[in-house]
């Protein structure tokens, strides 16, 4: 059982994500994590400002429970099922990140330069995290789903809109990493 404590290879991670989709379908629900952001907005009173947030949030309570589970799962994975959480990315990625100033590449789970304790104090880092988060939240709702809703469950259902969204995800990601990162970092 020692493999559990090692980083999981893709051929374990992929099938387990497919199993998550299957189990959610089998309990009569759809896989989609970003819907929770909308539900949380409604819970915060956003229905007073926009019709978009006036919906029966109780029908989405099950999904909030899934999200709570994901949070607990992250805790279990990090604290009970890991000995070393360094992510062994490829040497060319490490070299590239080192050149951009990311010294934690190949050492940590997340870049210390963005998510370390300094991130709350450095205005530039704070801005990067906020802009990234706003784009994820805005884009996911605009596109009607995120990686789970489109790339996994939508494509599994052979939905053309999901293919368009995933193409959009990739154009956006490639633009950020190849065109914008050299300007930002």
């Amino acid at each position, binding site marked *: 059982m020692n493999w559990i404590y090692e980083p999981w290879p893709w051929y374990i991670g992929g099938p387990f994500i497919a199993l998550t989709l299957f189990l959610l379908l089998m309990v009569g629900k759809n896989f989609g994590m970003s819907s929770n952001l909308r539900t949380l907005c409604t819970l915060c009173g956003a229905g007073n400002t926009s019709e*978009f947030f006036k919906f029966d949030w109780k029908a989405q309570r099950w999904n909030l429970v899934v999200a709570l589970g994901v949070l607990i799962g992250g805790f279990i994975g990090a604290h009970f099922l*890991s000995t070393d959480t360094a992510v062994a990315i490829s040497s060319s990625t490490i070299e590239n990140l080192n050149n951009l100033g990311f010294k934690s590449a190949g050492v940590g789970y997340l870049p210390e330069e963005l998510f370390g304790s300094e991130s709350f104090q450095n205005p530039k880092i704070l801005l990067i995290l906020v802009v990234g*988060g706003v*784009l994820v939240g805005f884009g996911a709702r605009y596109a009607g789903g995120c990686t789970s809703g489109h790339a996994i469950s939508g494509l599994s259902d052979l939905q053309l809109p*999901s293919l368009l969204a995933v193409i959009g995800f990739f154009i956006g990601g490639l633009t950020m990493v190849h065109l914008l990162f050299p300007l930002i970092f």
Partner: protein
Amino acid sequence: MRTLSYLSIGIFFGITLFKSEAASWFRIYEMFRFESFHMYGIIGTALCLGILSTQAIKRFEINSFYGEKIEFKPKTKSVKRYLYGGFLFGLGWALAGACPGPMFALLGAGFYSIAIVIAAALLGTFLYGVLKEKLPHS
């Protein structure tokens, strides 16, 4: 009972996201630089098995564990919202290195600065709700 099943599925998914490193900013960056097969392997196998199980459920009209019909909601047919929204999502996914599922897993794992990203994602969702009528969707 059902609530417990949702919680268990979430925990299983959260552990998977963390342990497979799909929740790592580094893996997302590496993926967009095409320097490793890892993320493509994860998404690829998840998708292949997802297609098989979804199509099997539809073809053989398999009922849920509770004996109910499993409903698939077709997405509304349009082009712009998926490409534009997807593009903006992709920019954020690469910058913050996390999509909505991994965000929750990372918070649980103890990376508290991800709370900034989650709060900002809520703000982004709120902005979409406010601006929805003014955006091209067709």
